[in-house]
Structure formats: structure tokens, C-alpha cells
């Protein structure tokens, strides 16, 4: 039992941190957002070529570095600290997860492109009505000869504007919320009938509404088994949830640090406000929330490869409950302790707060995961 990173993982972290420190200042990030984009091609190229991190979590026979969840944790935590806009989560964690767990024949080729930075898949899973029930799908895929024909509407597809592909969950059979009948497809964005409407999200990254209007997808693009992909989807989303918690830990660490720095500088009534005991204890409670979140994120990361689906799911659910609550507590108090300055767009803290607030709800907030935990721990509510 140990909680240490390997030498390679430590090097990976330092390399990412150093790159971001040189190339991803807060001002540069804000410039990208103001330009109407959430993506710098040069940065993605650097991820692929200079840093090689796009392959860090892929297996070696796929051309990756043979890492996994821990490598994703290392990268995402640094991305959280720098508020990286580019969608590593969809393009690497999610796409990589589907390739790893599906045995899909197209996987190796896609992995190669992802690692090289030439394919950037985004994950189109949410639907307007479905909330956090991944089986609640109105998007349909009907088999028609050597192809599937997709119709439907995917909501808030993060990374959509700069994606080359979508990984799409769709219903090939069954009723709107049935567990059976869920399938997963890789859809080239340039396919006829793929309509996107792009916009920025309030925390910086861009997203799209994605409409499939009689989109024809080759059967070779079916990832996993037709109609039996729900466990696969759940597993990959659990992996993505864990990675997003690592990002949240990075975000919260910055929120805490920025708050400690600000309160030691800001003077009121003749002394730095960090001298007020009430604010000190608040910062202690923020620190405790951060530490507990890190502990739970490590725990979930180490259990995410468990073949026991219940253990894995309980680990992720319980960790997300902690992290979601912490995102609220640390985020809201960081703003409160910054006073009026925390309310302004020009201060970095407000952007970390916005990111923390949205990460709280990504793949379901504390309520969703609490119910999930309860069901796993006690059985279905009566």
C-alpha cells in the first residue's frame, strides 16, 4: 500500500507543469476566450509532440506510454491548476477508455491518431431530457444495410467546436430509458447530416449542440456490442469522472492558494485580513475539504481498474460526493474571502470558481452520486 507517484509519473507532472507555466498564463488563456475560441492548435500540437501526453495513458502496443488512470490524474490535476481549456478529458480519457475496454477493431487506428493529435474526439452523451441517466436516450441508430442511421440531439458536447469526431451514445433498440439497447458509435464530424451549433461555456471551454439528421455511420464504427454497451459507457464515464475530480483538485488547490495569498495582502482595519480568526478557520476548513478531496480522488483512481463493478462504482460515487461538496465550499468561500475583488472578471480566482462550480455537476453532482452510492450500499430505495 503506497500513495507515492513513480519517478516517471513525477517527471510527467513536472513536465506538464513546466510547459503550462511557460505557455498557459492566465492572460494567454483569457485572450483565447476573448477571441471566441477554447482551443489553441499549437497547444494541442505541443501536447502531442513536445510533451507526448496524449499517449501517456494509452498502452504501449497502441503507441502510448503504457500508463493509465494515474497518468490521467497527474495530467488533469495540472490542467486544473492552469485552467486548461482544451478537451483532454473527451479526446484522451473518454476516447481512450472506449478503445481500452471495448475491444473495438477500429481502436488501434484511432488511438494512433489521437496520440498524434490528428484525431480529437468529443464525447456526445448528454441529452436535453436525460439529466445524468446515461441510458435515457432519444437519439436513435437504426441499422440500414452496411450502416447505421443516426437521428437525435446531443446537449452541451464539450470540445465540440474543435473536435474531429464524436463518440455518440445512441439507442439501437428498447424504450427511452431501458438499460438494454444502448450502443456507441464513432462519428466523423464531417459526415453529412451532422449539424453543430457552437458556443462558449461560462467557465471557458467551448461546446456544441450536436444534431444528427439522418447521419449514416458505417457498421465498422460501432464501438462495443450493439445494444449492450451501457456497462461500457458507465465504466468510461466513471473513468472520466475520476479524471475530472483530479482536475477539480487542481482547481481547488489554486482557489485555496490564491485565497491565502490575497488575504495575507489585503488589509482592513489596519491588519491583513488573514489575521482574523474567522477567516483563518475558514481557510483551514477549505484546506481540509481539499485534502479530503485529494484522498478520495486517489482512492477512486486506484480502484477504477477494479473488475468488481460495484466496488468501482461505490468508489467513484463516494469520491464524487466529497469532491462536489468541496467544489461548492472551497469555491464559494474563495470568492467570499476575496470580497469584491473576487467578483471581478479580471481576477483569476473568479475563473477558478466558475470552473469548480461546473466541475461540481459534471457527470452528476453530490445528489446524483449520493443516490448512486445508497443504491449500491443499501439496495434500491423502497
Amino acid at each position, binding site marked *: 500500500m503506497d500513495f507515492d507517484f513513480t519517478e516517471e509519473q513525477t517527471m510527467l507532472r513536472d513536465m506538464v507543469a513546466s510547459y503550462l507555466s511557460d505557455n498557459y498564463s492566465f492572460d494567454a488563456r483569457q485572450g483565447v476566450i476573448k477571441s471566441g475560441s477554447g482551443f489553441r492548435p499549437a497547444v494541442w500540437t505541443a501536447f502531442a509532440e513536445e510533451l507526448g501526453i496524449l499517449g501517456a495513458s494509452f498502452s504501449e502496443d497502441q503507441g502510448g506510454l503504457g500508463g493509465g488512470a494515474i497518468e490521467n490524474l497527474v495530467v488533469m490535476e495540472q490542467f486544473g491548476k492552469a485552467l486548461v481549456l482544451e478537451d483532454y478529458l473527451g479526446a484522451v480519457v473518454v476516447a481512450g477508455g472506449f478503445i481500452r475496454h471495448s475491444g473495438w477493431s477500429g481502436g488501434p487506428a484511432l488511438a494512433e491518431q489521437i496520440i498524434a493529435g490528428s484525431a480529437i474526439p468529443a464525447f456526445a452523451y448528454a441529452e436535453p431530457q*436525460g439529466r445524468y*441517466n446515461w441510458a435515457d436516450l432519444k437519439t436513435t441508430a437504426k441499422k440500414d444495410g452496411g450502416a447505421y442511421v443516426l437521428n437525435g440531439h446531443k*446537449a452541451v458536447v464539450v470540445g465540440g467546436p474543435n473536435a474531429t469526431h464524436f463518440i455518440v451514445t445512441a439507442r439501437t433498440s428498447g424504450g427511452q430509458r431501458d438499460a438494454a439497447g444502448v450502443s456507441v458509435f464513432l462519428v466523423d464530424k464531417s459526415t453529412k447530416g451532422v449539424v453543430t451549433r457552437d458556443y462558449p461555456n*461560462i467557465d471557458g471551454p467551448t461546446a456544441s449542440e450536436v444534431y444528427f439528421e439522418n447521419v449514416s455511420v458505417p457498421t465498422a464504427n460501432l464501438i462495443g456490442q450493439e445494444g449492450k454497451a451501457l456497462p461500457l459507457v458507465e465504466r468510461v464515464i466513471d473513468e472520466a469522472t475520476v479524471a475530472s475530480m483530479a482536475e477539480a483538485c487542481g482547481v481547488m488547490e489554486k482557489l485555496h492558494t490564491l485565497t491565502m495569498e490575497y488575504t495575507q495582502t489585503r488589509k482592513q482595519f489596519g491588519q491583513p485580513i488573514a489575521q482574523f480568526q474567522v477567516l483563518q478557520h475558514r481557510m483551514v476548513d477549505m484546506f481540509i475539504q481539499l485534502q479530503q478531496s485529494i484522498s478520495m480522488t486517489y482512492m477512486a483512481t486506484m480502484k477504477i481498474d477494479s473488475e468488481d463493478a460495484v466496488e468501482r462504482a461505490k468508489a467513484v460515487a463516494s469520491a464524487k460526493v466529497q469532491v462536489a461538496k468541496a467544489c461548492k465550499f472551497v469555491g464559494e468561500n474563495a470568492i467570499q474571502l476575496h470580497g469584491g475583488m473576487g*467578483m471581478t472578471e479580471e481576477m483569476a480566482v473568479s475563473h477558478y470558481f466558475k470552473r469548480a462550480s461546473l466541475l461540481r455537476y459534471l457527470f452528476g453532482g453530490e445528489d446524483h452520486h449520493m443516490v448512486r452510492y445508497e443504491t449500491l450500499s443499501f439496495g434500491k430505495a423502497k
Partner: protein
Amino acid sequence: MNLEFTAEDNAFRAEIRAFLEENYPKDITERLGAGEEATKEDYVRWHKILAAKGWSVISWPVQYGGTGWTPTQKYIWNQENARIDALPLISFGVAMVGPVIYTFGTPEQKAKFLPGIVSGDVWWCQGYSEPGSGSDLASLRTRAVREGDHYIINGQKTWTTMAQHADWGFFLCRTDPDAKKQEGISFILVDMKTPGVTVRPIILLDGAHEVNDVFLEDVKVPVENRVFEENKGWTAAKFLLAHERSGIAGVARSKRGIDKIRQIAGTEFADDGGKLIDDANFRRKVAELEIDLTALEYTELRSLAGENAGKGPGPETSILKIKGTEIQQRVTELALEAVGHYGAPYFRGFPNDGDNAHPIGPEYAHHAAPRYFNVRKTSIYGGSNEIQRNIIAKMVLGL
């Protein structure tokens, strides 16, 4: 002890309700209901309708244009306004500088400034906070130096709400730099068109332009624009701060907020495919909010009963500020939760390209996140909730 309103109160309520029904602009209701922000024109238009009726400065003494209503009547007025989500009047003239002028001003100042506030023709802003002085207001550094029958003002104010629209501003300036903190401050009215006054927007985290920096560079102001004695401005400032807190609980508006959440949650689906409002977690949160709001409402009513009995609003109104702002924040948080994935898209300044075939979520979701972010300010401004707790500890509990 009883909760009944008198027959007179009920008749009054009917009158108010009928007036609002008839006179409140329907188009403002529609635009704001769709998530648009109120414009200066909206505020002024509604103010002038109220002024025509004689109801623009309800709390003022009758001689200056007030209504003479009882605290209960004012409470009913607030309830009925909140019921239809009416625009509140901008407080800087009506609730702030107006009362200071009619309390501390000269007859000439009253004659010059009060009519424009009553009529809504003059838009005021408040120059209190400075970059270095937030909760510690008295540490302000803007200087006003007497030169003959003028002051020359130099300094910087910040968090100046809606200064971009303002015709006049009231500013706290240090006139005696050698005096102790609260002393040596004067309360000065400044025409915002005076040379040397520069207003620079501060953009908030939700993208809103509500507040501004105001730079004052060799701004020349006649001495007759000073209200009350030189170096005694803190008296007026304190009076205003106490005044500012009444109504801060925002009970009626939070009730409307909860109503809207119930509507949204009656439309949105939960994980199990039922309506969100039937989801056990979600309705628990709504119920907790309703109960906490009821507790706040009755605490405010007890305070109001004290006012009816002739006691002014005391430092215990800090309780209303603390709980009121906490509840407002939870209301917006719950609205954000209710809209699910569609809390993320950012609409401010985003071109509505009219692609109605491919909408970006329901209209009610468009402002959920910005509001959640924006109302963080309520526990910060007007004396942070930490400062309010200090006030209760000292003034109410005597610690």
C-alpha cells in the same frame, strides 16, 4: 399576537394590486421574464409612472413627497411588487441620498435636489468604497481640498453601481487629512459631467457591467454641494448605512425565486424519468429553502412589528441581511442545479442567430449560472456577512 391583517390593510392591498395590474408595463415583464436585463430606460419609465401616482418615494416624509404609509402598508407594498416581479427603484436617489438631503441638507439643497429624485429625472450613484477600503470604509483616502468657495477633489472610488448612467453622485471625501479615521470626512454631491470625472467599467465574473471605478482628477465642486458640516460627513454616512439595510431580507423576491424553481422542476426530468419536482433530493432542498425562508419571513415580521410600535430598525437587522443573502444564494444555486447540463452555455453577448430549429436549451436555463455567480456579491457588499456577525456580536450581544 395575531397574524391577521386588518380590513384597512386588506383594502390597501387590493388598491395596490389593482394599481400594479393596470400600470406596470407588461412589455418589461415579458422581456425580463425572458432573461433580458433591465435597461436604464426601464427603470426611469417605471419610476415616472410611480412618481405620477405619488408613490416613488413611499418612505419619505409626506412634506417631501412621501406617502405616510405605516410599516405594515410598506410591507404590503413590497409584497405586491415582488408578487409581479416589479422592477425595484434604483436605491441611490430614493433610499440613500434623498433621506440624507432631507435630514441633513440646507433648504436650498432640498429645493435643488429632492424634486429630481422624486420625479426620476436625476440618476444618482454612490461614491463610498475605495480600492483600499472595503469593509473598513472609514479608511478612505479620496481628498477634497478647499480652495475658496470650491473643493478640488482627487482620488478613486470603486464598486460604484450603475455610475455609467449617473447624472449626479454623492461622495465621501477626506477634508481633514490629520483627523482620526471617522473624523475629517465630508459628504459631497458631484455633478458627474464635471471635468475630471472618469467612469471606467468593472466587468463581473458573470460578464455583467453593473459596477465601475470612478476616477476623480482635480474635480472642482462648489462648496454649497457639501451636505452637513465639513468634516462631519461620517454622521450622514452612518445614517445612510443603517437606512440601507431595511428590506434587505428580500423575502418576497426569494419566494418568487422558489416559485420559479418549482416551475422549472415541474418541466425538467429527473434521472428516473419522472419530473424533477418529484425527485426526493430536489424536493428536500426546495422544502428546506421554503422553511428557512418562512423563518426569515417571521423574523422580519417581528422586526416590523417592533417598527410599527415605534422602534427604528436596529442592529438586529443584520440577521435579516445574513439569512436573506444566504437564501438568495441558495435559490440561485438550486435554479442552476435544476437546469442540469444547460447551466453551462454562456449567452451574454453570444449572438442569437435565430436558429430556432436547433435551440441551446430552454430559455429559463440561459441565466441560471450567471445569476448563481452574480449573487455571490450579496454576502459581500453592504458590509460582508462576516462584518454583520461582528456587528451582532458587538451591538446586540455586547461581546
